[in-house]
């Protein structure tokens, strides 16, 4: 390893009583790609926010290029040649690429001069790093992969020598992710340093030179990527052995539980998001819907669960029709045995301000079990909540605690426990493990498979291709509101990736 680009020495940071970073030491070599992995809440983002000047460390030292550096604001970081690409892009949607790139770095009071200067600089950068983007394109008209490229260009335009990427592949198709990795490789070849924060271990293995693992605010290990394995990294992250691949037997699929026919759904702007979709789910099987986020999966889930009104089409639940275009109501569907774990647990699946036990009846608060006349039967509600906390190992085991104070994985377990314990015939699950730590992912996957083995029909929608592939008995791929293909669980990532990018769909349309 050559000279260090960044050295972090003894970094500590607390939020109130939470010690987000404890005594972190980290050395990142110049001209390398360095991965940082860890579960949610392990302190990765905090550490990078300290490096980028969003937060200041309580104690410790940062050295950039061997020199002690004081980074108080992102501007200090930029001046030191540190650039950051955030998980959620910081772009002005209705500006052009060029305008976004110079935003905040205008060289003159009049835009005309800045733009002319930026245009030639941008062309140079694009050529040098293979980052082709039309400088005059409007951001909102670009696919996410290109928007991310604009973020990288922004950082390079400001003279970044060190580039931090926070979960960069979350919104990308596998092909787009591959392209990103090629770009990062090129940046490395040109002598730039790349720091990659991710929870996807396979990406770490594919692209990084060195990798550091964080757990509960501490840096537990740094390894040369070539000398470690996915299993070792996972164990370091969680602190115990984890099963990365769900073990499951053959599906014993029975009769059709849910039949969707010619379903069309529009969003609030009137854009068709689900376009004439038909599929069946049978008892005892898990059907997975793969696709890049925003291709109509959310609207499909909302329509089937009665939250959003469909424009046309029919859905049969246990052979009886549901009036999704008219009066269907989530409560009525629940009564008929359709349980729904929504994608957005923070705003839909849970009320974060509620106590845990109050959330454990959300949607089932009409159940006579939980009522005494117009009054809530508080004892029954809390007893049920306590039972589920024990059964699903929800931590901390306190049904009076505010839901917001549970970790993402435990919040998801609260929702899953509520929906699974109703013994539904059909379970539809959106993003079962989004924002959930590795340990809880294993638990949730096992539970979903157990539901299947009990003969329930399970529909899983996820943007994590790995999850879809390991859980599903059948995989449907959605692109632009249509199902563009059905594959078995043995389908390769490349094959599904092409479908997700709409390649086959476009060919079919030609």
């Amino acid at each position, binding site marked *: 390893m050559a000279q260090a680009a960044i050295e972090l020495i003894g970094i500590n940071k607390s939020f109130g009583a939470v010690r987000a970073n404890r005594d972190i030491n980290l050395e990142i070599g110049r001209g390398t790609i360095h991965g940082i992995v860890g579960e949610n809440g392990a302190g990765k983002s905090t550490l990078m926010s300290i490096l980028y000047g969003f937060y200041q460390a309580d104690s410790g030292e940062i050295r950039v290029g061997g020199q002690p550096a004081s980074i108080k604001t992102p501007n200090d970081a930029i001046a030191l040649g540190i650039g950051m690409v955030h998980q959620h892009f910081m772009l002005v949607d209705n500006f052009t690429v060029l305008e976004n790139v110079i935003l905040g770095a205008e060289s003159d009071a009049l835009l005309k001069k800045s733009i002319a200067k930026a245009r030639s600089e941008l062309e140079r950068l694009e050529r040098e790093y293979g980052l082709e983007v039309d400088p005059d394109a409007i951001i909102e008209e670009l696919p996410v992969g290109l928007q991310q490229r604009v973020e990288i260009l922004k950082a390079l335009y400001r003279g970044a020598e060190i580039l931090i990427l926070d979960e960069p592949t979350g919104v990308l198709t596998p092909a787009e992710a591959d392209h990103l990795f090629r770009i990062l490789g090129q940046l490395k070849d040109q002598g730039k340093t790349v720091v990659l924060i991710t929870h996807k271990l396979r990406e770490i293995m594919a692209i990084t030179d060195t990798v550091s693992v964080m757990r509960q605010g501490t840096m537990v290990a740094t390894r040369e990527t070539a000398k470690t394995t996915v299993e070792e990294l996972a164990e370091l992250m969680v602190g115990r052995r984890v099963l990365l691949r769900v073990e499951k037997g053959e599906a014993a699929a029975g009769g059709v539980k849910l039949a969707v026919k010619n379903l069309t759904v529009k969003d609030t702007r009137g854009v068709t998001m689900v376009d004439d979709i038909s599929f069946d789910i049978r008892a005892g099987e898990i059907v997975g819907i793969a696709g890049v986020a925003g291709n109509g999966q959310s609207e499909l889930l909302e329509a089937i669960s009665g939250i959003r009104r469909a424009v046309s089409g029919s859905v049969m639940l246990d052979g009886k029709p549901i009036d999704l275009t008219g009066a269907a109501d989530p409560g009525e569907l629940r009564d008929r045995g359709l349980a729904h774990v929504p994608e957005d647990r923070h705003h839909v699946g849970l009320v974060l301000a509620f106590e845990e036990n109050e959330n454990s009846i959300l949607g089932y608060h009409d159940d006579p079990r939980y009522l005494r006349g117009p009054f809530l039967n508080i004892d029954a509600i809390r007893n049920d909540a306590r039972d589920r906390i024990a059964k699903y190992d929800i931590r901390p085991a306190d049904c009076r605690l505010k839901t917001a104070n549970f970790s993402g994985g435990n919040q998801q377990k609260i929702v899953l426990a509520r929906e699974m314990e109703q013994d539904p015939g059909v379970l539809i699950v959106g993003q079962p493990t989004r924002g959930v730590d590795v*340990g809880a992912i294993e638990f949730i996957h096992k539970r979903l498979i157990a539901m299947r083995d009990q003969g329930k029909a399970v529909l899983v929608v996820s943007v994590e291709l790995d999850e879809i592939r390991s859980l599903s008995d059948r995989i449907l791929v959605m692109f632009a509101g249509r199902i563009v293909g059905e594959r078995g669980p043995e389908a390769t990532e490349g094959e599904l990736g092409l479908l997700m990018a709409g390649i086959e769909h476009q060919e079919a349309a030609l």
Partner: protein
Amino acid sequence: MSTPYAKLPAWADYGLIPLINLFVAFVVAGFVVLLVGENPLRAAVILVEGAFGKGTGIAFTLFYATTFIFTGLSVAVAAHCGLFNIGTEGQAYIAGLGIAIVCLSFDSTLPWWLTFPLAIIAAAAVGALWALIPAYLQAKRGSHIVITTIMFNFIAASIMVYLLVGPLKPAASQAPQTRNFLAGAELPKLNWIIELFGAKIRSAPLNVTFLLALVMAFLVWLLIWRTKLGYEMRTYGHSPKAARYAGISETRIIIPAMMISGGLAGMMALNPVMGDQHNVAIDFVSGAGFVGIAVALMGRLHPVGIVLAAILFGMLYQGGAELAFEMPAISRDMIVIIQGLVILFAGALEHMFRPYIQALFASFSPRSVGMEAVKGKGA
């Protein structure tokens, strides 16, 4: 890196922080008093003594507090459902009409303990119906409840002026008010309770409506935290999307919530009308509905907090009146400034000192802020 703000123990959250906010409000108010050339310490003493020093003062403070408990509860019930009911003022005002009809019809024939329940029903019903129209418009047409309730305040005021200078005014009278009620519509005073503790009371309007207010505070607690309707209201109030997911219909929740809110606002009118003035006069609500917003916010939308905040505002009203009397340099307007500062610090700037107090607690004992407990260890 979840929430940077740690949780505080309940006593600090509900006791210490409001007290600190109040203290700061009084310190700033003290500077204002200093500015007009009076001694702030003496002013504070007069204010507190005026409100709590003598039996009469206490009775007046609780009389004002009664009014604010009703309006505070009204605002809080709507707020739990995510609705900002600015119409408490108008709902209380128009409820005076219901009370007038009951009292003018029965005060010569029925005793007070029969008139009173009828008047309660009439006041609540008129207030609730007045809130029903904005509620319906919000639920069915999406008309914003803030705008419609403000407009309904003006409509209520106009109707009441028309009625009080016309149909409801005795023919021979020059004053824009109903005739005075007879004994059958006069509520008994509660001053004897304070006199039990040895205080002397000359004359004060504290009456049985105070007890009704406390009962209502309990019923509101029961409604919000112990009934299915309250659960649905809170779900909708925190997250309309979660309510939709849970199968809670927007219409079936907004309309009852606003009607209960309007009913509570309507009951406020009982206190001045039947307990004090014994007639319905123009502008008898005089801003109590708006004070209710401050009371509800300061009381953190919890009935106990609302009762305490209502007593605080009762104290400011009563003590402020004494202050204006004792210190000529301090006019009624100065009292409004002091009240405004209390609202500013206890309401709008409620969280100003919070991070510092949390840091303080965290440095003393991390466990007291519950951090170990909330650090879920995954699974």
